């Protein structure tokens, strides 16, 4: 349903993406793994509509991505919350933008807030929230809009180890209830293996697809402890290492 074909992107000084092609089925979660600077953020920004000078094609349900009429969620590295809106107002922002009636969504909003454990933070402003809390607010905002496509840019990388694992697990539990089609980009092998049904490995800049792997331990309870987790992690590490250029 999401088709990316021959996508290339050049900035004035650098080439960011080279001929990336991908095809993702509805309800899949793809992890895109690559080193820093390989064009991951650029790729998501193309899908998010804020970069438009690329070449190649992106289609969602057969047509160009229509951000106005479809719902595309975005969770960024810096969480993307508006500082002058409370946690709650940030969560309902996508609904406001889509001119949806908030009253009819109250149950869903309450449910998501409860599930992510941020009900008590409703009236707090982002300045007074920890990184993990801000992240959960951003995740809540993405889920209340029932996204056709969910884009995540290294969403957990700014969190400490313990908070990161807890937030990843929490995210996964919310995700599997509705399985929105998701692209998660990351430089963390561990994160890609924990959250990616398939893992796309990108090369150093300009990013091109080196390989797409099926993840055998995806969705397993306690995946991190399984031998398969270590196995695929080391396979990925080899792939990333083999792509060294002088």
């Amino acid at each position: 349903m999401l088709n990316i074909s021959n996508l290339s992107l050049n900035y004035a000084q650098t080439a960011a993406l080279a001929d990336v092609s991908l095809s993702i089925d509805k309800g899949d979660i793809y992890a895109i793994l690559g080193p820093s600077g390989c064009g991951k953020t650029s790729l998501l920004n193309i899908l998010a509509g804020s970069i438009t000078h690329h070449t190649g094609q992106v289609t969602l349900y057969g047509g160009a991505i229509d951000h106005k009429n479809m719902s595309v969620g975005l969770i960024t590295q810096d969480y993307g919350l508006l500082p002058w809106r409370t946690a709650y107002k940030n969560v309902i922002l996508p609904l406001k933008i889509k001119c949806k009636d908030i009253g009819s969504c109250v149950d869903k909003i309450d449910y998501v807030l409860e599930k992510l454990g941020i009900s008590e933070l409703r009236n707090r402003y982002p300045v007074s929230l920890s990184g993990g809390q801000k992240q959960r607010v951003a995740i809540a905002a993405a889920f209340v809009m029932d996204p056709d496509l969910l884009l995540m840019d290294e969403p957990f990388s700014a969190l400490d180890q313990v908070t990161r694992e807890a937030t990843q697990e929490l995210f996964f539990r919310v995700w599997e209830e509705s399985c929105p089609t998701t692209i998660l980009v990351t430089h963390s092998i561990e994160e890609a293996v924990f959250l990616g049904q398939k893992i796309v490995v990108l090369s150093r800049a300009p990013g091109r697809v080196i390989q797409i792997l099926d993840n055998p331990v995806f969705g397993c309870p306690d995946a991190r402890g399984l031998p398969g987790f270590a196995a695929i992690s080391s396979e990925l590490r080899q792939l990333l290492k083999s792509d060294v250029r002088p």
Partner: protein
Amino acid sequence: MKKGITALVNFSVGAALVLAVWQIAHLALSVNVLPSPFVVLRALPALLGQDIFTHAYHSFYRIGMALLFSMLIGLIVGIAAAGKGVFAKVLTPFLYFTYPIPRVALLPAVMLIFGLTDAAKIIMITIIVVYPIIVVVRDSVKDIPKQTYNTLTCYGAGRVQVFLYITLPWALGGILSTARISLGTAISILFFVEAYGARRGMGFFILDAWMRLNYVQMYAGIVVLSMAGFALFVLIDIIEGVFMKWKG
């Protein structure tokens, strides 16, 4: 509550220090043009019979209107100047060219055109106060990090929504941060414009007392004008407390 007590302590300490410096200056200079602050304070109640409220009201009104217009114009022009449209292209050189003009010197022109009216005084204060506001708003809107727009773009927000949800709140934050400086400037200019062709206002009251060589009354007028300014400062603090909570 705790904040209120801190404010009260700060106010008391500040007032005591001002009185102390004033008293020392009075003793050191020992001239009749600088009376003791206590003599001046004792003269305050007597002023109440002197229409002091009417004078203070007129000054308040002029400052209030001028600040209101300045912020409104500053917001609109500043945001427009931050854009990429034709307006921004025309406005930027205009701002750079007119910024260094000593705008106070335009007072005679403004009074010739608008006469000895309240409007002339409000326009004069506005002309001076509005410039820095325009520049601050323009710069703050230009400084909005590009990523701020990314989520809204992704949700498919239109131009009007981007303006309402990002540009406007951001610009309002910028304006409030300059409100105290604007107020200080407005009070200074107020004194100046009320010196010419005014029969009402604290500026007139102070200069009138000066002409009559009634120095105690002159200083009393300065104290009242300062208190009015202080009240407006507190008002800005309160507005900031309510609308800028998000800055933490």
